[in-house]
C-alpha cells in the first residue's frame, strides 16, 4: 500500500550515486539532533550526580529543580553538563552509548563472554544475536504460513464468486481490528492446550502478514487482460492450466510487492508476540529493558529489530529482482 505510493514519489530519474548524499545528509542532521536532545532529557539526573560529586548547581535543592523546565536547567548550569553523554542510566542514551551496548551485547558477548560462541560453542542467551535469531524464526515461520494462507485464499476468491462475496469483506474488516489485542490471548490459550514456543508467535505473524498477500494476489490473479484470457479459451485450456500458465505467472510482480509489506508486518507480529512470554526474542529484551530501566538495552534491541527488518525487506527485494529477470520481465 505505502510501497506503491512511495515508488511513484521517489525520484526515479536520479542515478543511484546521486540518491545517497541527501539521505546521508538527513541522517547526519537527525543524529546531531539526537545528541542535542540528550542534554535536556538527562539534565536532572546529571545535575544530581554532579552535585554529589561536589559541583555548584544553581538552584541548590533537588526539589526546586524538579519543578523547573529542562532547558532552563541546561541554561543555568552550562558547566556541569559534561556527564550528559556518558551518564550511566540515562533517560535518553547518546547514539554512541547505544552503539557500545550493541557491540557489547553482540560481538563482544560472543567472542569474550563466558557463554559466548567462542567459549561454549553455542550462541550466548545474553547476546542480541541469539534473541534476533529467536525472533527471526518466528517471523519466517509466520510469514510462510501467512503467505500460503493468503495465496490459497486469493486463488479461492478469484475462482469462486461465493467466496469472493462472503470472505473478502471479512478479510477487510479483520484488518481494521487491532489484532495485537489478541496476541496475549492467543499465546495463553495455545499454551493451555499444550502448544508453546515458536507456534503462538508465528500465528500472530501469520495473521498480520496474510492480508497484504490476499489483496495483492487477488489483484495479480485478475491482472491478465481479456485478450490473454480469450487466447486461453481458444486453446480450450482447463481452469487449472489457466491458473498455472497464465494467472500465477502474471501475478508474480503483485505477489512480491505484497510480500515486502507482509514480511515487515510479520516481524512486528513476532515482536509483539514475544511481549507476554519472557522466553527470549527481541520483544522480550525490550520488555526486560523497560522493567530494569536499561534504556541502552531497549535502544540496542530496537536497532537490531530495525536492521532485521531492513535485511528481510532487502532480501525479498533481491529475490524479486532475480525472479523477475529470469521470467523475462523488466526489473
Amino acid at each position, binding site marked *: 500500500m505505502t510501497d506503491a505510493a512511495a515508488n511513484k514519489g521517489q525520484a526515479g530519474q536520479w542515478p543511484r550515486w546521486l540518491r545517497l548524499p541527501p539521505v546521508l545528509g538527513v541522517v547526519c542532521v537527525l543524529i546531531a539532533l539526537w545528541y542535542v536532545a540528550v542534554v535536556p532529557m538527562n539534565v536532572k539526573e546529571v545535575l544530581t550526580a554532579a552535585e554529589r560529586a561536589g559541583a555548584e548547581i544553581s538552584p541548590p535543592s533537588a526539589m526546586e529543580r524538579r519543578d523547573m523546565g529542562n532547558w532552563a536547567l541546561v541554561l543555568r548550569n552550562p558547566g556541569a553538563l559534561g556527564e550528559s553523554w556518558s551518564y550511566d542510566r540515562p533517560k535518553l542514551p547518546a547514539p554512541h552509548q547505544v552503539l557500545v551496548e550493541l557491540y557489547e551485547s553482540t560481538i563482544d558477548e560472543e567472542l569474550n563472554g563466558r557463554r559466548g560462541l567462542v567459549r561454549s560453542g553455542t550462541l550466548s542467551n545474553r547476546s542480541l544475536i541469539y534473541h534476533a535469531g529467536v525472533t527471526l524464526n518466528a517471523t519466517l515461520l509466520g510469514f510462510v504460513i501467512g503467505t500460503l494462507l493468503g495465496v490459497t485464499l486469493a486463488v479461492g476468491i478469484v475462482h469462486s464468486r461465493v467466496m469472493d462475496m462472503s470472505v473478502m469483506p471479512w478479510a477487510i474488516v479483520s484488518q481494521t481490528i*487491532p489484532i495485537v489485542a489478541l496476541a496475549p490471548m492467543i499465546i495463553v490459550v495455545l499454551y493451555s492446550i499444550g502448544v508453546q514456543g515458536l507456534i503462538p508467535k508465528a500465528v500472530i505473524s501469520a495473521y498480520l502478514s496474510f492480508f497484504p498477500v490476499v489483496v495483492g494476489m487477488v489483484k495479480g490473479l485478475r491482472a491478465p487482460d481479456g485478450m490473454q484470457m480469450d487466447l486461453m479459451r481458444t486453446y480450450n485450456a482447463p481452469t487449472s492450466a489457466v491458473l498455472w500458465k497464465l494467472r500465477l505467472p502474471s501475478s508474480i510482480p503483485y505477489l512480491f510487492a505484497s510480500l515486502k509489506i507482509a514480511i515487515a508486518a510479520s516481524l512486528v507480529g513476532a515482536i509483539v508476540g514475544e511481549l507476554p512470554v519472557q522466553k527470549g526474542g527481541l520483544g522480550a529484551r525490550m520488555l526486560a529493558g523497560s522493567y530494569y530501566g536499561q534504556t541502552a538495552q531497549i535502544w540496542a534491541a530496537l536497532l537490531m529489530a530495525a536492521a532485521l527488518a531492513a535485511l528481510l525487506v532487502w532480501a525479498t527485494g533481491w529475490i524479486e529482482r532475480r525472479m523477475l529477470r529470469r521470467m523475462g520481465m523488466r526489473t
Partner: protein
Amino acid sequence: MTLVWFAIGLWILGWGANVALANGPARDTAAVRLAVPLIFGATLLGMWELIVRGLEVPSVILPPPSQIAGSFAANLGLLWGDFVQTILKGAVSGYVMGCGAAFVTALLVDRSDYLRRGLLPLGNFMAALPIVGTAPILVMWFGFGWQSKAAVVVLMVFFPMLVNTVAGLSDTSAMQRDQMRTYAATWGQTLTKLRLPAALPFIFNGLKISTTLALIGAIVAEFFGSPTLGLGFRISTSIGQLDLGMVWSAILVAALSGTAFYGLIALLERRMTFWHASVRGGR
C-alpha cells in the same frame, strides 16, 4: 455431539444459501452484496457456539459467543471507561497529532527537492520498521497516563502518513503544473487548487492505514504500563484471571471501534474524493 452435527448442518445451510444468492438472478443488487457476507458471518458465529457447546470446550480456552455477549452486557460501564481511556484519549489524540504533524512536514519537505530526496527513502524505511518497539521507551518518558500512548501513536502514524502525502503532492502531471504556471498561479494557489485535491486519494490512503496503526500503538503501549483502566490493561489483567469472557469483550470493543474509525475515514474519503475514478466507477 449432536450439536456438532447441527453445526455442520448450519454450515451447509448457510453456504448453500450464499451459493444460491451469489449465482442467482439478483446477484448484483446491493441487498445481496450485503446479505452474503452477513450470512457468512452469522453462520460462523452459530458454528462457534454449537461446536464449543457440543465438544464442551472449557471456557478458559474458548468461551461461546453467548457468554461473551453476556459478559459484554454486564460490564458496559467498565468497558466504556476503557474505551475513553484507550481509544479517545490515547489513539485519537495521537492520531490527530501524528497525522497533522506528518501533513505539515510533508508540505515543508515538498518545497525542497533535497529534503524530499533525503526524507522519502528514510520515511519508507521507517514505515517498515517495528516502531511499536519504542513503546517501552515512550512509556518511560511520558509516564503511565494516556500521554505516553498518544506519543507511541504519533510515532507510528507519522511515517506512513508522511510518505503517502509527499507521494500524493507529487502526483500531478507536468501538463497540469504548466497550466497553473500559464495562469501565473502562486505556490499557495497551485497547492490549494491543484496539488492538494490531486493528493487527496493518497492522503486518505495514509489516513486509513494510520487508523489501524493508531489502535495497535495505543493498545500495545498499555502492555508496558498503564493506569488501572484501558483496553490493553483490561486484556492483560483479565488473562491473568483467566476471565476470557472479559478478554473477548475488550477485544470486541477494540474491533468495533477499529472498524468504526476506519469506516468514518472511508466515508469521509468518499465525500471528499467524489471526483476520483475509484469512487465514480460505481460500487
